[in-house]
């Protein structure tokens, strides 16, 4: 196994709202190796995006990282000064967001935006900077890159804009890219192109990725490890193949079974009743208890994360036995 790149331990991010403390991320721990792609899945409000933002220190009030540690190659990022964090962002860890039409500046040409991203971290001649930009644009599959440097974001289609955003993320050869729903705003045919490209890029550059998505099938097409989040906590994790073929948490199982692919057409889908509880004032019980068909008296206490080999599950009644 390659070396450890990122260690997240006991990360908790809370939002101090008028109605009380909202525990968006609650005691999240995981380890990411160099060049590894890890998938972070969950429904909206499960805390997956806030986890991504917390790693980069991009949490604004009323949000606050209240506990935990994030170590990049042994260096602690939580509590790091803003100038130091800036040197990390975009250079060692970069991010690709969901909607490329809001993340690119509409009044600057993409060449200017790319040069700004380069100049933030090093001093380069104009020619050298342009050469670097053209090189990454070619790598993400934008033809005629030299001419396109003068284009503005509105002159690109949605798929092409997302490629530009990915190119900017790759510019400084980061060790880690956090991708927050990068293909959700795109059409399926474009999504397929981007998925294949990202996978190749990750291999070529040896870049590790955290791929955040609500869509189990897209995540599973790129990631080797999967973390499933529910109500701010990781409730199950493990190698993608194992986890999806034999999910151990009732929530993961319910989620997989509720996909239309898993039922014959016209038949009722297996549904998870109810909805996710409010993250304000979560009680001591398991957060999934009200929707779970396995629950009993034991579930009134929050289960600890238990492990079995590479798998972890947070449940008193996992499907398979032998858990420690």
């Amino acid at each position, binding site marked *: 196994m390659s070396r450890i790149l990122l260690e997240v331990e006991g990360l908790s991010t809370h939002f101090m709202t008028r109605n009380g403390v909202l525990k968006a991320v609650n005691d999240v721990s995981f380890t990411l190796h160099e060049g590894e792609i890890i998938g972070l899945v969950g*429904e*909206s409000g499960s805390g997956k995006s806030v986890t991504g933002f917390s790693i980069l220190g991009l949490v604004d009030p009323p949000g606050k990282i209240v506990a935990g540690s994030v170590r990049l190659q042994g260096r602690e990022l939580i509590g790091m000064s803003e100038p130091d964090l800036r040197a990390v962002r975009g250079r060692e860890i970069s991010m690709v967001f969901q909607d490329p039409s809001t993340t690119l500046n509409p009044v600057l040409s993409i060449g200017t935006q790319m040069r700004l991203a380069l100049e933030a971290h090093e001093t380069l001649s104009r020619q050298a900077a342009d050469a670097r930009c053209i090189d990454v644009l070619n790598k993400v599959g934008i033809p005629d890159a030299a001419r396109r440097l003068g284009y503005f974001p509105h002159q690109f*289609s949605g*798929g*092409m804009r997302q490629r530009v955003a990915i190119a900017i993320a790759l510019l400084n050869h980061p060790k880690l890219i956090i991708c927050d729903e990068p293909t959700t705003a795109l*059409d*399926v*045919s*474009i*999504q*397929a*192109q981007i*998925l*294949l490209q990202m996978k190749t890029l990750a291999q070529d550059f040896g870049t590790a990725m955290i791929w955040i998505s*609500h*869509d*189990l*099938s*897209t995540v*599973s*097409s790129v990631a080797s490890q999967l973390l499933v989040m529910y109500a701010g906590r990781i409730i199950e994790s493990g190698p*993608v*193949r194992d986890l*999806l*073929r034999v999910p151990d948490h009732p929530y993961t199982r*319910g*989620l*997989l079974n*509720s*996909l*239309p*692919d898993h*039922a014959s*057409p*016209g*038949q*009722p*889908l*297996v*549904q*998870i*009743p109810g*909805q996710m509880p409010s993250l304000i004032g979560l009680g001591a019980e398991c957060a999934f208890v009200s929707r779970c068909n396995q629950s009993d008296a034991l579930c009134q206490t929050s289960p600890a994360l238990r492990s079995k080999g590479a798998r972890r599950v947070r449940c008193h009644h996992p499907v398979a036995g032998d858990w420690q």
Partner: protein
Amino acid sequence: MLLAQAPIMTDRPLLRVSKASKQFAPALSFGDHIAGWLGQEVDQRIVHAVDGVSLDLHRGEVLGLVGESGCGKSTLGRMMAGIYPPSQGTVQLDGVPVMGAGKKPLKTTTRIQMVFQDPFASLDPRVRIGETIGEGPLVHGLVDPANVGAYVAQWLETVGLPAEAADRFPHQFSGGQRQRVAIARALAMQPDVLICDEPVASLDVSIQAQIINLFLTLKQTLNLTMLFISHDLGVIRHMTDRVAVMYLGRIVESGPTLQVYDHPQHPYTRALLDSIPRLVTEGDELVVFKAIEGELPSPLAPPAGCHFHLRCPFVQERCKTVVPDFSDHPSLPLSGRHVACYFPIS
């Protein structure tokens, strides 16, 4: 199995779209107007959203309309719902146009109702949902003022909400519950046809399954006729009897859903089906998908001939100039399949 499931078809479709097209022309700027008066050529950018589409919806069937964003599926849905008048062609319900004539035509029927994608935008935030649901039936005399409370309660229960919900405002509901309210509002008008534009796209997977199950139940208990618009091929496969695949304003293929999915004949349908990452529970590969080359051309300047020829692996000279005909009018019963391609996959 499919024939056993299929509802009994009468010869005449309930809702018929005949060679309907819709263009959108952005308003000209002041400068362009002056240039026009002075006899100059003004370059007006016209969006060809829907291009000569013919489609039948039979009583009791659920028809799926699938395609990527910008292919015109929502515009076609809105023409069928009587929201947009077609630029050319007609939309008829039982032989009567769904919109009146004139410069600003209005919908002439309440028998077609619509459910929209975003239940956060489609409900008035300042109106109690009981009033939202009851207003239409009251105005159109489907219920008298004395009984409107009970009437609303009945529809709320039909969609799985408690009767007390009538006194609440939209913000007091979650996304899935709001979509139930939107469905109740449409059903309270006792429509013959329900047009659903991406009704589950904005919902989380576990909530999506709840709403899909609600539609399946309603379809059986109320014998609903539905047009189900979605970009999600999995949802369409699960929900519909028949499917029409759209590409850049035209229908490229239609037929019974399972037949189209199992044996797509149009190269675009096949490419679209292949491009969705699908979880496989057996074998070595966990997720299978293939990418389609290229991007959707702009509807401002659609290519000549077959709209798909720029991305098609089987393209020939003829495809680049002559539009493949989608047979004259798909008035055939459910078993009929249509493909707008010179070289369909056999």
